[in-house]
């Protein structure tokens, strides 16, 4: 059933997916947020008729267009990569996973691509109100496309609303609404989109700050900062709440991921949250490089327990509890799960062989046994563990998860403070004089991108080795193809995306330097 799998193939396939997803994720957050900021600005223009707002709207729209094009370029690969590099996965869950992708295309992409053209080219072709509507629909379309892909991603992290069918050897959907409204999907959508809003707000503030430092376009910059500071502040508060709720979800559904990003090796009651920590580079467990402890840490007692279970004294399992098992708290050892997974795989194989040999009676009885609630709950639930040969394979890269998570959270907290200060200076009218803050605002732009990428790493590295939590590890999901083929496409896309990224940054910087230019109507050329 699972022929020899070349681990280097799995790693290169993962690397290619990571490369393309991370490149795509450089551009998506800005699109998610800046479309709304532009919509706010254009709304003010339509309400007030003040051409200054049209100028502001058009300037940010130009930057959005440059960003959007490369976002599209990097996005198409992802849609098809599920098939090209993860074809076994595509069949195993295509009945569920394909639907959100199709809906994304039908409902969101067309909305986005139709109305974005009106946004850019419709100024003189449709009425002001229709144009404004198109701008809003572009923002909604962009965020709707994020909804569907995140629903699909959330399902991989928390498979719900499905039932395995041994006849077809795949999972089949039994409840569309369970898939759409799974708590993981809701949190993921809200947290991810609001992170995009925050990044876009920082982008707008940072670039406007540059104009203020250069003493150019003062009115434009002040107005832009005012909008972005309010939007950013509200979004960043929201981001914290959705992040908190996401973490609780992860603690309950993906305890290994939670332990990894908290750097928790040995679980305890009243577990403390490591606010800052430096992982040991010497104290490594010889059997697994991911098992190291901290050289230095600042811990806040009981907070982790509360964060995970809303109970200051709750037990939070650590990496070691999840691998070795913990009888006291009813945690099954990984070896036991692996054994049960193998039983499930073996049973499926027996069923398939019975079908092949035409022994329908045996096949029917095996199917009944396979589908019984007892077998589903005690064996099929651990199906994916059957592919795992070594329990240590179940531990994600703890150091990478830990640092990414803490970097993301730390920067998130800083962004709240940043928005408060920006807002205060706008209200007081002292923004132009705060040159230190303005310089900081420019440097906050790369920080927003780092936080955003770190968030992606937390979500995706922390869940390893699972493509579908507990049901399918990466090594069972990968397309059987030569490693060299994946290496070639990896480097090909690495090269082309890097060239395009450099082009994008150069074009963007040039457009910023050119700045908003006023024509007779207040628009820019």
């Amino acid at each position, binding site marked *: 059933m699972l022929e020899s799998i070349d681990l280097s193939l799995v790693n290169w396939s993962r690397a290619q997916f990571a490369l393309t997803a991370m490149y795509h994720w450089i551009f998506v957050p800005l699109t998610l947020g800046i479309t709304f900021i532009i919509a706010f600005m254009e709304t003010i223009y339509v309400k007030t008729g003040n051409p200054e707002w049209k100028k502001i709207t058009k300037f940010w729209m130009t930057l959005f267009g440059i960003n959007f094009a490369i976002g599209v370029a990097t996005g*198409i690969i992802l849609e098809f990569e599920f098939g090209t590099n993860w074809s076994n996965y*595509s069949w195993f869950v295509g009945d569920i996973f*394909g*639907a959100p992708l199709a809906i994304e295309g039908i409902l969101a992409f*067309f909305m986005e691509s139709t109305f974005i053209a009106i946004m850019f080219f419709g100024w003189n072709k449709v009425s002001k109100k229709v144009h404004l509507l198109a701008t809003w629909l572009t923002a909604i379309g962009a965020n709707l496309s994020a909804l569907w892909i995140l629903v699909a991603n959330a399902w991989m992290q928390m498979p719900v609303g499905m039932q395995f069918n041994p006849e077809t050897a795949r999972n*089949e959907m039994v409840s569309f609404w369970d898939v759409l409204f799974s708590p993981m999907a809701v949190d993921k959508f809200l947290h991810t989109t609001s992170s995009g809003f925050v990044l876009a707000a920082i982008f707008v503030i940072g670039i406007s700050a540059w104009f203020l430092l250069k003493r150019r376009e003062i009115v434009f910059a002040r107005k832009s900062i005012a909008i972005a500071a309010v939007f950013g502040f509200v979004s960043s508060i929201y981001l914290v709440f959705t992040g908190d709720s996401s973490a609780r979800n992860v603690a309950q559904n993906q305890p290994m991921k939670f332990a990894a990003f908290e750097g928790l090796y040995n679980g305890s009651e009243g577990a403390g949250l490591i606010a800052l920590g430096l992982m040991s580079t010497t104290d490594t467990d010889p059997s697994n490089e991911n098992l190291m402890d901290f050289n230095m840490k600042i811990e806040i007692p009981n907070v982790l327990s509360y964060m995970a279970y809303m109970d200051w004294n709750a037990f939070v399992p650590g990496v070691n509890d999840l691998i070795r098992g913990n009888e006291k708290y009813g945690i099954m050892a990984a070896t036991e799960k692996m054994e049960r997974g193998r039983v499930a795989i073996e049973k499926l194989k027996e069923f398939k062989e019975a079908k092949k040999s035409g022994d329908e009676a045996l096949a029917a009885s095996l199917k009944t046994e396979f589908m019984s609630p007892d077998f589903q709950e005690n064996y099929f639930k651990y199906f994916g563990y059957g592919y795992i040969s070594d329990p240590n394979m179940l531990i994600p890269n703890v150091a990478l998860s830990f640092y990414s998570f803490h970097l993301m959270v730390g920067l998130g907290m800083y962004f709240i403070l940043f928005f408060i200060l920006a807002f205060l200076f706008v209200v007081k009218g002292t923004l132009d004089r705060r040159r230190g803050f303005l310089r900081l605002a420019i440097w906050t732009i790369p920080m927003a991108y780092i936080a955003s990428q770190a968030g992606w790493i937390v979500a995706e590295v922390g869940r390893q080795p699972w493509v579908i939590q507990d049901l399918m590890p990466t090594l069972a999901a990968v397309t059987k193809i030569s490693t060299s083929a994946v290496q070639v496409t990896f480097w090909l896309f690495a090269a082309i995306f890097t060239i395009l990224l450099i082009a994008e940054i150069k074009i963007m910087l040039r457009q910023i330097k050119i700045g908003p230019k006023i024509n007779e109507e207040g628009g820019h050329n």
Partner: protein
Amino acid sequence: MFESLSHLALQQYWWIIVSLLGALFVFLTFVQGGQTLIYTIGKTETERTMLVNTLGRKWEFTFTTLVTFGGAFFASFPLFYATSFGGAYWVWMAILFFFVIQAVSYEYRKKPDNLLGAKTYEIFLILNGAFGTILVGTAVGTFFNGAMFSLNDMNNVLWQTPFRGLEAVLTFHNVALGLSVFFLARILGALYFINSVDDENVLARSKKQVLYNAIPFLVFFLYFLIWLVLKEGFAYDPATGNVFMEKYKYLHNLIAMPLLTVLLLVGVVAVLWGIALPLLKGGSKGIWFAGGGTVLVVWMLFLLAGFNNTAFYPSNYDLQSSLTIQTASSSHFTLTAMSYVSLFVPFVIAYIWWFWRAMNTKKIDAKEMSEESHVY
């Protein structure tokens, strides 16, 4: 509403939708065809800018249709998605690569400091136009000629050649379809220029290109169609699921489905009329006849590949691994859920139609290019 339909009815419904998306995509490759003509028809910088801009306002539809086609195929026939994309790796990667370079080219072409220079982005557009159409057409050819794969017990694909799909070019019938799509896209591109650009020189050169490309298109397309009718095809027995070769299978399909045959012929006539219209009468509506005809022809070809107990993605290596709309589809539940989503499609088409009309009421001209605030 959809719940009461049989699984087979839903499978057929979704095959019709996916086929329609494929057909709309081929029509929308007028963007790709137009891209290959920007130097042939656009002799001056202003002319080229007009051509690039009139295409640039439509390229995202083609792109989005391709992505939606992929997504809809994944949702409705996941085994095809897994088998073809995972198997014919090089073909799909090459197609993706040529679409990646298209996506930035419009926006970056004219922008200062664009790193690669306007000419490089124009070459990207030409490459996308040429290889995007030829590769997609050749890949679709394997629907009729088969591919080299087998499926194991878990329905996982095992491709049987190291060329991972590129071997499709060794079958001339596949290539003939690829080249038909390429020349058709160029015809549609030229017809679109006639319809949307207000410039004497562009009009005259576009007319010439319609004629020049019509000849190779007809040669390759007629070869494809005649050979298709004469060749043996991949049939399956719905009772046993057994796949077998049947002489004149596609001819039998045409006879068994007369409505499909009529629509196919209507489509061919519409394409020919669309080509003839600007040449004979000087009209600018050729794109609508040729475009509508293209949709009908491609739609019916897809239906021909999948209906009447035909394996739509056959395997030459292991006949019994061939995919049919019954073996490759999603579950009854998923197809039902997706069918409700499909009710939004007319709404989507309606707002695209409205948008198209709003944006194309006036033809693009040199004056607009000098006044417009957002120019590609």
